[in-house]
Structures are given as structure tokens and as C-alpha cells.
């Protein structure tokens, strides 16, 4: 029991994931700033942001909303993200959870933050948040199928293995999945899926600062918003880690290989950052057709190729 609590709260759960995710968030902001000829924030800026919201700022509860749902929604999101972090990061650190089929659980856990944000948005009673929530819902409907198919593709490539630990082991024994055509296709689709999951441009229509003024999160302030920020940091760590585990044979944490592990995650985050800095926000309709038609086509092709061993 104590071990589980440690897993959940300290390593690789809440504390570790939040701190590493915060650093990655700084990395994302710094790269963005450099691309845009700006100086960028200092390393600790994400943590300053978090602690300012948590300790200094007041919480304003909307009058027309439903306060309990509104305040609990971010907490649900954080639990979902943290549990997902445990399931994703433990196999990466060579600790088997002994849970056969955790990949599907991860898939469900990763949707919890998005759903809780929708819940919070609708509970806030703000029309802009309602539009943001409905957009988020449409976005989930469009990318979740693709994301599930990516996972199915990885399972197909690994020879019907449903747990992340054995998928990593299979890649370590053989070659990483990304070395094949189907692996590359899965990687492309996976990157776009996590781009949408993280709500980064071009898929940030749920927040859409210049349309909805932060949409789903418009009514959040103070500690509840700090929790949302924390959830976002965690998501920014675990989603790239999931891609690294599923397609890039995870991490080898001995000696110089630690550097490679860091580079893998940083590389994926860099890719996400560059995509978000070289694209405008697309319409929700375009996002739906992008995932429903093009990405699904790519993933299905990848799965077919995987069956032929390519």
C-alpha cells in the first residue's frame, strides 16, 4: 500500500510528473519565444505561475454556475492525469505494474482530464465556456478514434501484447517500431493526436484566446486554475512519454543513455512546439474532417501494413 501511495504521489506520479512537466512547459515556452524573436521566460516561470495561482490568487465562483461540479472538475482531471502518469511512467522506468492490458486503461485515463474540463466548463454557466466545452467535446469525438487506432496499431505490431511493459521489452529485444513504415505512420498520427489532447495550436479551438477568451477555462481562477495548469504540465510530460514508449522503445536508464531518454522526450515536445508555432488555429469542422478522414486513413494503412510485417 505504501509503495502504491509513493508511486502515485511522489515517483513517478504527482510530484515527479508535475516537476518534469513544468520544466518541459518551460522548454516549450522558451522555444516558442526563440522562434518569435523573444527572450522567453526563466526556467522556474511555470512554477512561479503555479504557485502564484495556488497561494496568492483568489477563487471566484460564478454566480450562475454549479459550484461543486465547477470546483471538483479540475481535481478529477488531476487524478486522471496522475494515474495515467503512474501507468505510463512505471514501465518506462523498468518497473512492471503486473497489469496485463494497461494500455487500454491508459487510454481511458487520458480522456479523463478532457472530460473533466468539459464538465467544469459547462458547470461554470458562462456562454463562452459552454462553446469552448462543446468544441472540446467535438474535438474528443474526432481524435479519440484515431488515438485508439494508434494504440491498436502498436498492439498489432507487438504481436497482441496489451501491456506497455512488454511492448517496451519487445522493442528492446528487436527493433523500435518507428523504424518501419507503419511505425512512422503511427508516429505521425500519434503526434497529431497528442497535439489535440494537449490543446495546442492548431487544435486549441476549445480555448481559442482571441475567439472565446480562453473558452473552457474562462471562469477559473486561483487554486482550481492552478490545478488545471498542473494537469497540463503532467499531460505535457506523459503524452510524449507514451509515444516514446509505444514506438521508440522507451528509455534505457543507464549511463549516457539517460541523455538519449531526455532527448527523446524533448525532441517530441520540440516537434509539438514547432507545429504549434507554424500553424494558425483551424476550425472545429476542419479538425473533425482532419482526424476522421485523413488521420484515420493513415492509421488504418499503418495497421494493414503492420499485419504484413512492414
Amino acid at each position: 500500500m505504501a509503495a502504491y501511495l509513493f508511486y502515485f504521489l511522489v515517483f513517478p506520479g504527482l510530484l515527479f510528473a508535475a516537476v518534469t512537466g513544468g520544466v518541459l512547459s518551460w522548454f516549450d515556452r522558451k522555444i516558442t519565444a526563440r522562434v518569435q524573436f523573444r527572450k522567453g521566460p526563466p526556467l522556474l516561470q511555470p512554477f512561479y505561475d503555479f504557485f502564484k495561482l495556488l497561494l496568492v490568487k483568489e477563487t471566484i465562483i460564478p454566480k450562475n454556475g454549479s459550484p461543486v461540479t465547477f470546483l471538483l472538475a479540475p481535481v478529477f482531471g488531476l487524478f486522471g492525469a496522475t494515474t495515467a502518469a503512474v501507468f505510463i511512467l512505471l514501465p518506462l522506468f523498468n518497473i512492471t505494474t503486473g497489469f496485463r492490458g494497461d494500455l487500454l486503461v491508459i487510454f481511458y485515463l487520458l480522456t479523463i482530464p478532457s472530460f473533466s474540463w468539459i464538465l467544469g466548463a459547462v458547470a461554470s454557466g458562462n456562454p463562452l465556456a459552454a462553446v469552448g466545452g462543446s468544441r472540446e467535446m467535438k474535438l474528443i469525438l474526432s481524435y479519440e478514434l484515431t488515438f485508439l487506432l494508434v494504440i491498436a496499431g502498436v498492439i498489432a505490431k507487438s504481436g497482441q501484447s496489451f501491456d506497455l511493459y512488454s511492448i517496451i521489452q519487445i522493442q528492446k529485444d528487436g527493433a523500435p517500431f518507428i523504424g518501419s513504415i507503419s511505425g512512422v505512420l503511427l508516429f505521425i498520427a500519434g503526434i497529431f493526436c497528442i497535439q489535440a489532447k494537449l490543446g495546442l495550436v492548431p487544435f486549441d479551438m476549445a480555448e481559442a484566446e482571441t475567439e472565446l477568451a480562453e473558452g473552457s477555462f474562462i471562469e477559473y481562477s486561483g487554486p482550481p486554475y492552478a490545478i488545471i495548469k498542473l494537469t497540463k504540465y503532467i499531460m505535457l510530460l506523459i503524452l510524449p512519454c507514451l509515444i516514446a514508449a509505444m514506438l521508440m522503445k522507451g528509455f534505457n536508464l543507464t549511463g549516457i543513455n539517460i541523455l538519449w531518454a531526455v532527448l527523446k522526450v524533448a525532441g517530441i515536445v520540440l516537434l509539438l512546439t514547432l507545429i504549434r508555432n507554424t500553424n494558425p488555429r483551424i476550425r472545429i469542422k476542419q479538425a473533425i474532417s482532419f482526424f476522421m478522414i485523413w488521420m484515420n486513413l493513415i492509421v488504418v494503412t499503418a495497421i494493414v501494413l503492420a499485419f504484413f510485417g512492414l
Partner: protein
Amino acid sequence: MSNKFLIPIGPYHPLQEEPELFKLYCDGEIVRDIKWETGYNHRGIEKLAESKTYDQVFFLVERICGICSTSHPFAFANAVEEICRIEITDRAKYIRSIIGELERIHSHLLWAGLAGHFLGYNTVFMWAWKYREPVLDLFEMITGNRNSYAMFKVGGVRRDIENNKIPDILKVMDEVKKKVTLLTGAVMDDPVIHSRTKGVGVLTRQDITDYGAVGPTARASGVAIDIRKDDPYAAYPLVNWKVITAEGGDVFAKAEVRLLEMFESVSIIEQCLEKLRKEKEGDISIKVKEIPEGIGTGRAEAPRGEVFHCVFSDGSNSPVRHKIRAPSYVNIATFRKSCIGQSISDATISLAAVDPCYCCTERLAAAYDEASGKKIFNARELIELSVNKTRLLREQQVR
């Protein structure tokens, strides 16, 4: 229709830099109706102008708009010079045109950046504004100010562009041309920008004539109206340039017109500078002793369209009546055509695409009580309130 709900854009919203309120009545994501309220920024400039001398009014009208801050003095100068029936020197004309075109470049770059920001494309935002910096530095070199240049006066300009500064200006122009080419390439060749802006907020030729829209908004729909050609003033008839138009009428066409207009502006500035070398240095203004009685109208093509000033003079040293119409006043009305039926994402970029400038456009707004339809405040009551307050303050001071 019962399930329409209201999406407020404003009075404080990241989409617009200025306070104004757009009420989008939406059915799901689709905008079914739009209403707007301005009046948050009314400063009573027309009234103020009546209490200033002609020389002071230049500084006043310059502050109508922070971005197109030279177009209003331009139009005002045209109006007053019409009353006086004077022709300014060629050197002054060239300098006026150079300032006007430099302003067009910086304003269009500013819009390009903001349009990128509104689309969530912050890289374009930062890059466009970085490229705008040298233009502002140039303004500082020529006029001493980055904004609100204080260059115009009745009968000419206040400062000369010395001939030894010309090579430096040309150098910056070359740089600007390179950067604008880069930006134009980045915007025009991006398939995602195409998919996001093409066919969005379309205004047909008919809409433009119906609403009387002006400037790039009209030119993007293929209506070639440009005060610089239609009612030539300053040095525009003396140099070679063409009116840029596009056919689409959508947001993309508006961006295209603005981007290509910058090249025209650079070319006008270069030609003006060449001709400036041949003129006598220091010959920048003629002395105007007094403004005779009369009515003068002045027009100028601001970056956003036609600026119109009408000045009534009774022969004293300040205008009796000063009427101003900024381009946004007519352009904002086109929102009914461009936004209704679009999704919220498209409506917001359509709102931004006419490059609205609300503080130019502000009129005194009267508030109505929605339930009874009764006017809550009208002009007379507001004046009474203000008079009473002044009286109160005076009484307090006496005590």
C-alpha cells in the same frame, strides 16, 4: 430560434484592442445575428476642435487614432487649405506623401500581425511587429516621434527631410521590402492559412456599394476606390503607382490587398525621395496669415480607407464646426453581411479583417432601457450632469 444564445465579444476581449461590444447571437456555433455597441471611448474631439486654434487642432486630430495618426492631420490640412485656396510647395507635398505612406506600411504590418494573432498564429504576430520596428525607427529619425508625428501644419510641414538623410531612408526601405516579401510568401503560400481565410466573411461588390465601405475592405472586393487616385492630393498625382485590388472579397483577399499595398507604398516613397533631391532644401511651408470665412472639405486615404474632414470657418482663429468621419464608421457596418451565417471562429476573424478602429469611430451613444424602450441618458442630460458636477467642484473650491 428560441435556442439562440448570446456570445459577447467585448467590452474587454482579447480579440480587439479597444473597448467595444459585439453581441453575437449564436445558434450552436453559427452566428445568426450581430449587434454592436460603441461609445466606450467617446472623447468629444469634434467639440474640442472648436475650442482650439487651427494650429492646435492638428495635434488634436492626430490623437483621434494612434495607428493612422497622420491621416487625420492630412485630411484636416486638405480641408483648411481648401478654405484658404493655397497650394503648398512641392517639397512639402513629397514629405507629406512620404509620411502618409510610411504610416500605411506600419499600419498594414500591424494589421498583418494582429490578423495572425487572431488566427492563433502568434509567430506571424511577432514577426510582423518585429519588421514594423525599423519603420517606427525611421519615423523617429524623420519626425522625432515613433507615433503621432506632429509633422503637418496649414501651408506645409513642420520639419524638413534633409537630403543627407535620404540614403538612410532608402536603405530601410530596401530592408522593409525584403521583409515584406518574406511575410507575403509566408502568408500567401501557407495552405492552412488558405483553408482558414478563403471564402470567409465574403463581401460582394454589391455589399460594398450598399454599405459604402472604403479602403482595403472595398478594394478586396474588386472596387477600386482610393482617394489618392479619385481625389488626388499631396504628391500622389506626381508619382507612378497603381491601386491594388483583389477579387475574392474574403479575409484572404483583404490580407492580399494590404500586403501588396505595402510594396506600392515603398515604391511611392522611393519615387518621392528621388524627386525630393531635386527640390530646394528648406522650402517646406508657405506662410498663412489668416483663415478666411468658408467651408472646406478634406479627404485622405488612411490605411483603413477614406478619412473625411469638413471644416467651417468664420474667419476667426478656430473652426466653428469640425466634422470628422473615419473609415471604420462605414466599414464596421459591413459586419452584418460578413458575419451572419458564419461560425464563431470565422466571424471573429471577419470582425478583425476590416481592421476596425473604434476610437476613430466613436459617436456619443445613448443608452436605452431594454424593457421600457426609454432612453436612459441623452446628450442634454449628460451635459447637464457635467455642468452640475463642475458647479459642485467650484463650490467646493470656493469653500
